């Protein structure tokens, strides 16, 4: 039987990899991938705990909500990245240094 702690350890590892990607990468798309990794770590936790709730299914339903929210976030973030690229011709967040006007 797989214990809850196993799932939690895997999700901690994924979270730390995502954190490393967000801090170290110099490319907005890879930072977005890091954010997705962190979201997936959170969803893994929700699903693992949701195993112990067969009446209300709260864990699984909120995992579904989190997946949908991640989709919405990604759509907006990619639209912003495309706009930034159109304006600055780069997607390195370190080189984007002025606001509109």
């Amino acid at each position, binding site marked *: 039987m797989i214990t809850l*702690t196993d799932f939690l350890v895997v999700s901690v590892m994924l979270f730390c*990899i995502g954190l490393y990607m967000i801090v170290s990468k110099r490319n907005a798309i890879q930072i977005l991938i890091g954010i997705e990794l962190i979201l997936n770590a959170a969803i893994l936790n929700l699903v693992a705990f949701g195993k112990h709730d*067969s009446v209300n299914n709260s864990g*699984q339903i909120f995992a579904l909500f989190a997946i949908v929210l991640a989709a919405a976030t990604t759509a907006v973030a990619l639209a912003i990245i495309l706009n930034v690229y159109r304006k600055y*011709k*780069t997607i390195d967040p370190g080189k984007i240094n002025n606001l509109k006007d």
Partner: protein
Amino acid sequence: MSFVRVLFYFMSFIAIVSALYAASTKNLVRSIFVFFVTLFALAGLYVLALADFVAVTQVVIYVGGILVLIIFAFMLSGKETLNVIQQQKGKFFSMAKLPAILLAALFFIVMINVVLKADADNLGWVKDSIATNNTITPNAVMIDNIGVNLMTRYLLPFEAISILLLMALVGAAHLSRKEAKI
């Protein structure tokens, strides 16, 4: 060691190794495509946690939607991103990455400690749910229960999510349209 456990170790190994590769590689295209593998392995982990519907949703929305979007953004932002990668290749990089590695490692130590100290398998409500047979069994069908709950108990969050999704889609369409010439 049971078969399920072997599968669990296999899936988590694939997920973590491919995530590490996506984090360490310099090549943006490889990073995106290896992220595919991570997402599939995570879907497998969801199945092992007895959440098959969430696993299918993960495959449909993440792999079918989000990754295609990311690839689109990469293709549209084009050559410049590859040039940045080429320039970085010659640089001495381990020193610049040191703070990020340190931060991730310290976070890892702290969170592993928290997880091991919390001892999730002996929590009160988890024990209660095992004692009262509230745990999902491998042969139970959960999809109809999820559907009923989604339309009764969780109807308000469901509607809120749908409004938010509409707002996000309108916002994304607004952001990505061509600006009018002034």
